[in-house]
């Protein structure tokens, strides 16, 4: 079981991060980052606040004091080479790392002000608020209809009958899948194409009305057309959900995200609005990575 070690002392108030400035949040910089005077844009709300997050897999430290805020109803992309900690960090946001036996975490992750690592937090409830879409589509071995209806029924989001029918249709429509599956709702979800399965998984995720959708390389197993459909969907969903996407495809990060964070060796190197990140990064490491001159 994961040991969530949260410091006993009072947690410093996190100022709204000024995303127009470069951020380097590693080691001792964290203290400066959380005591800074930047007030940011008051009209922008931070849905997720990560403070000095450190994570170990056994003896190996995978995250080195990450501090960053993720804005509500924007798309934030995590980029970086393999092993940089981006997926690990993503999984911290809905406590997926709890399932890893020798994983230890220090620091704080807040969802809309609530520390998600507090003992009283119901992890199942947390995961309805923070949904996740994985690299490989993983529909339930059930019908298309049941893939959507299953979680809302368990969590009491909707009852059987017309209310559920309506929810299923709404979610499939919002995932851009309704027209393709409306005549085969009783067929297994696994019979769909890869791209359709991924959109089914997104429809399933939004069915429980989460605040945040985490996407871990959601298009890496898809062809370009299916990828474009997912990207189009992300663009629409950000009006209602906060989306965090891990991607190895930098053009995808540049296309779909509003903010981009670059990680290297478990540290947050730079966090910028996406346009700045891909045209004028401030850090040499970022520049080298996104121009393909890394290592």
């Amino acid at each position, binding site marked *: 079981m994961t040991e969530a070690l949260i410091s006993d002392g009072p947690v410093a108030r996190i100022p709204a991060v000024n995303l127009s400035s470069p951020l380097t949040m590693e080691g001792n910089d964290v203290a400066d980052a959380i005591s800074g005077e930047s007030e940011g844009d008051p009209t922008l709300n931070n849905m997720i606040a990560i403070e000095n997050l450190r994570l170990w897999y056994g003896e190996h430290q995978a995250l080195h004091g990450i501090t960053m805020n993720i804005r509500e109803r924007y798309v934030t992309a995590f980029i970086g080479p393999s092993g940089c900690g981006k997926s690990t960090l993503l999984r911290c946001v809905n406590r997926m790392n709890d399932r890893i036996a020798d994983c230890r975490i220090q620091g704080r992750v807040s969802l809309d002000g609530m520390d998600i690592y507090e003992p009283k937090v119901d992890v199942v409830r947390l995961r309805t608020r923070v949904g996740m879409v994985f690299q490989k589509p993983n529909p339930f071995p059930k019908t298309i209809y049941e893939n959507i209806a299953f979680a809302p029924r368990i969590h009491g989001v909707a009852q059987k009958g017309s209310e559920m029918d309506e929810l299923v249709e709404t979610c499939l429509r919002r995932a851009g899948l309704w027209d393709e599956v409306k005549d085969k709702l009783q067929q297994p979800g696994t019979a769909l194409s890869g791209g359709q399965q991924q959109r089914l998984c997104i429809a399933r995720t939004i069915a429980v009305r989460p605040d945040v959708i985490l996407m871990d390389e959601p298009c890496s197993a898809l062809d370009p057309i299916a990828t474009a459909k997912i990207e189009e969907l992300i663009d629409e969903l950000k009006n209602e959900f906060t989306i965090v996407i891990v991607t190895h495809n*930098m*053009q995808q990060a*540049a296309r779909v995200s509003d903010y981009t964070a670059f990680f290297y060796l478990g540290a947050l190197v730079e966090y910028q609005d996406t346009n700045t990140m*891909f*045209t*004028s*990064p*401030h850090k040499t490491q*970022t*520049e*080298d990575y*996104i*121009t*393909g*001159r*890394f*290592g």
Partner: protein
Amino acid sequence: MPRHTLSRFDTELVALDDLILSMFKLTQHNIKGALKAIYSGDEALAEKVTSQDEAVNALEVQIDELARRLIVTHQPAASDLRQVFAATKIVTDLERISDLAIDIAGEVARLDVGAERVGQLKVMQKLVMAQIKGARKAYFDRDVEAAHQVIEQDGVVNDAYEACQRVMLTLMLESTKQITSYLALSNVAAGLGRIGDHITNIAEMTIYMVIRHEVRHVSPERIQALIQEQDDDD
């Protein structure tokens, strides 16, 4: 700068700069030739300058094509993107400069007085030639200070142009029979002034390429401050 993982990309960026260098050289050659024709009244030389414009146009197209290919095949980002973007803007300015050189050469046929009678024109010529030489060096050395000097120099060119026009006006009033010649020289001065503006654009794109700040429509003082800020960041 570290080498790109894909060596072909670096090779193509070098090829892009090689083509821009060729275009710079040809354009400088054309300005020089056009002014020489003006001072010597050599219409054959003026014709030669005009015929060389095709090579400049061909280079512009070739550079744009390479830039398009680079974008499609490599999706450049950050400094690479700025280099490719700057290249496409700079070649447009170089092509326009070459066109202006042809326009200048075209005035030879209307001249029946020596251009040396307007001393300010020589001043403009020297300034503009120094400006384009500076812009070329700044681009290839990625030298923002040198680019900034080129931009500052544009003010001097503009002042020289105004002085030139005042002299020309006086000469036109004094010898109305030669008004066509002085109008032609006035066009030469105007052409040099516009060339100065295009060279300034090139210097601005050079600064953008190197320090990532957009400096078009920004005062030289503010540009200097941005360069200083960048130095402090580095």
